[in-house]
C-alpha cells in the first residue's frame, strides 16, 4: 500500500482555467488528477448538441487536454478521472482512444462508465408504477415528461473504483458525482470498503474541498483577499491522503494563491445544506465532525471525519424546457444617471404593455445601484457616474420574448439622453431549462464499466 496518495483537482466546471490541469501534472508530484465538467445545466446543453450532431454531447476540452498531457501521465504514472463524457460517454472515450493512437501510445486503458443516462427509460419507470416526484414541489414526473431534455442519475464512487481495479489509466463517465472522483482513488489505493462509513465520508469531504478547483486555494476567497498572492498563477488544490484517514489540503510549490484554514472553511461551506447530512450515493457525511489544523505553509490537515450509512436512493437530475427568456442592457451616464435609467425602464415597460406582450416575469435591475444586494445597498449617491439598466423577461411565448428584444435599441434615440452600451446588438433569446430533482431506488439503475484499450 502507498504511504500517501495525492489527488489533484484540475477543473472546477466546464469552462474553467485550461492551464490548471496541465500545471497539476507538470509542476509537482501527483498520483491522480480529477476533473469536474458538469454543472446541472451542462447536461441539457450537451443533449441539444448531440441532437444536432450525434457524435457530440461531451466536453471536447477533455480530449484536447488528454492529447496535451498523455505523455506526462504515462511517464509519471498518473491516472485521470472525469465526468467529461456528458451524454455521450462512449463518444468521448473513443475520441480519447483515437488521440492516444495518433500519438502512438499502445496499451492505454480507458475506463468507460455508463448507466447514468435514464432519459430513454423514464416512460418504462412510469409504466412500472415507480413514483418519480419533484423533491422540492412534489410534482409528478408525468406532468413534464413530454418536455424533458435530459435525465441523469448521480453515480458515486463504485463504478470508478471498479474501473481503477481493472487498470484504467483514464476514466470517462457521465453524471458522476464530483466527490466520487476523489473518493474512488483513495478506496482503490487504501483498500477502503463500501461499508466503512467513516472512510467513505473522509474521501467524500476531501472531494468536496477540491471539486471547485481554485475556489479552495485562494480564488473567490473573502478572508484577507487583498493579501492572497499571485492569483494570476493560482495553484489548484491537491489532497494528500494517508491510509489512517487523515488528509492534508495543499497545492504545488511555486504556484500562486493560498491554502489556509479560512480558505478551506469557505469552500467547505459552499453549497452546503444541512451539515449533519451531506448526502451522496456513497455515504451520508457529517460536516460537523471535521477538524482542521494548520500543517505549515499552504497545508491544512483534516481529521476526525465521520459518516453514516448511505440511502437506498440515487438522486436524479431532470432538465425540462420551461419557456423562453431574454435580458437587455443599456448604460446611462452622469448627470442623473440613475434617474435616466429609471425613466427608460418606465418607458420600456409602457411600450411592452402597449404592444400587448405577455410575460410571466419582468425583472429590472440597475447595475451599479442594486443588482447584487437589492435594497440593502441603500440609495446611490446623487452624482453616481453611470448606471446600467438591465431588464429581463421570461414567458411561454417565444414570439413575445423575441419582440421584446427589438424594443431595447430604439430607446437610444427615443428615450432619456446620454445612453450607450448597445454594441452587442439585439439581446439573445434563450430557452429556459428548469430542474426537476428527484430520487430513484438504486436497484433500478444498472451501471456498466467497460475498458477500451489502444
Amino acid at each position, binding site marked *: 500500500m502507498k504511504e500517501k496518495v495525492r489527488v489533484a483537482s484540475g477543473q472546477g466546471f466546464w469552462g474553467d482555467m485550461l492551464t490548471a490541469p496541465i500545471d497539476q501534472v507538470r509542476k509537482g508530484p501527483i498520483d491522480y488528477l480529477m476533473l469536474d465538467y458538469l454543472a446541472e445545466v451542462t447536461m441539457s446543453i450537451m443533449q441539444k448538441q448531440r441532437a444536432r450532431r450525434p457524435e457530440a454531447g461531451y466536453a471536447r476540452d477533455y480530449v484536447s487536454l488528454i492529447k496535451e498531457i498523455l505523455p506526462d501521465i504515462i511517464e509519471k504514472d498518473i491516472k485521470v478521472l472525469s465526468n467529461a463524457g456528458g451524454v455521450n460517454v462512449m463518444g468521448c472515450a473513443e475520441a480519447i482512444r483515437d488521440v492516444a493512437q495518433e500519438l502512438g501510445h499502445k496499451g492505454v486503458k480507458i475506463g468507460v462508465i455508463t448507466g447514468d443516462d435514464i432519459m430513454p427509460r423514464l416512460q418504462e419507470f412510469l409504466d412500472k408504477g415507480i413514483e418519480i416526484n419533484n423533491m422540492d414541489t412534489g410534482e409528478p414526473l408525468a406532468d413534464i415528461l413530454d418536455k424533458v431534455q435530459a435525465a441523469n442519475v448521480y453515480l458515486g464512487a463504485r463504478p470508478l473504483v471498479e474501473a481503477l481495479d481493472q487498470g484504467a489509466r483514464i476514466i470517462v463517465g457521465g453524471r458522476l458525482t464530483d466527490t466520487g472522483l476523489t473518493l474512488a482513488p483513495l478506496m482503490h489505493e487504501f483498500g477502503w470498503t463500501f461499508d466503512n462509513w467513516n472512510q467513505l465520508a473522509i474521501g467524500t469531504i476531501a472531494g468536496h474541498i477540491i471539486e471547485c478547483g481554485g475556489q479552495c486555494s485562494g480564488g473567490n476567497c*473573502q478572508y484577507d483577499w487583498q493579501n492572497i498572492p499571485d492569483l494570476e498563477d493560482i495553484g489548484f488544490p491537491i489532497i494528500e491522503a494517508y491510509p489512517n484517514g487523515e488528509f492534508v489540503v495543499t497545492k504545488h510549490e511555486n504556484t500562486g494563491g493560498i491554502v489556509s484554514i479560512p480558505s478551506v*472553511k469557505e469552500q467547505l*461551506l459552499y453549497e452546503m445544506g444541512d451539515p*449533519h447530512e451531506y448526502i451522496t450515493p456513497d455515504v451520508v457525511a457529517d460536516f460537523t*465532525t471535521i477538524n482542521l489544523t494548520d500543517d505549515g505553509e499552504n497545508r491544512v490537515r483534516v481529521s476526525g471525519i465521520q459518516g453514516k450509512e448511505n440511502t437506498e436512493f440515487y438522486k436524479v437530475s431532470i432538465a425540462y424546457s420551461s419557456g423562453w427568456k431574454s435580458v437587455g442592457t443599456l448604460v446611462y451616464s452622469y448627470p442623473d444617471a440613475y434617474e435616466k435609467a429609471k425613466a427608460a425602464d418606465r418607458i420600456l415597460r409602457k411600450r411592452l404593455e402597449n404592444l400587448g406582450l405577455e410575460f410571466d416575469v419582468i425583472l429590472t*435591475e440597475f447595475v451599479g445601484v442594486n443588482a447584487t*444586494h*437589492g435594497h*440593502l445597498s441603500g440609495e446611490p449617491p446623487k452624482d453616481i457616474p453611470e448606471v446600467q439598466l438591465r431588464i429581463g423577461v421570461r414567458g411561454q411565448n417565444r414570439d413575445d420574448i423575441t419582440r421584446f428584444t427589438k424594443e431595447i435599441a430604439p430607446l437610444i434615440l427615443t428615450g432619456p439622453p446620454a445612453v450607450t452600451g448597445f454594441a452587442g446588438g439585439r439581446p439573445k433569446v434563450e430557452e429556459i431549462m*428548469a430542474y426537476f430533482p428527484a430520487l430513484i431506488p438504486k436497484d433500478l439503475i444498472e451501471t456498466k464499466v467497460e475498458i477500451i484499450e489502444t
Partner: protein
Amino acid sequence: MKVELTKLAHARSGDKGDTANVGVIALKDDIYPILVREVTAEKVKEHFGEIVKGDVERFELPNLGALNFLLHESLGGGGTLSLMTDAQGKTFSTALLRMHVDISDEEADSLGIA
C-alpha cells in the same frame, strides 16, 4: 454597540435551485459564540426582507466556528429560470455581512473593535 458583521466574520454563498446558502465564519474562535447569539435565523430573515420570500434555516458548525444559512425562495426561481444578475446567489455572502449586530463594550474591547 452595533457593528457590521464584516468586522466579525467572513462568508461564502452558493445555490441549490431557488435556495441560496450562506456560510458565515467567525474571524476568530472567540467570536463564534457572538455569531450564535446574534445572527439568528429570524434576524437574517428580517435583514434580507423582500429578497428572501421563503423561510430562513440556520445550522451550527462549532467545529468550524461557522453558521450555515439556507435562504429559501430567494433566487428568482434559480438555475436558468432566474432573470437575476446573481442567479447563483454568489453575492449573498456579502449581503448578509452588511447586517449590524449588538456586541457589549467588553466584547468590543477584547476583540479590539473600536
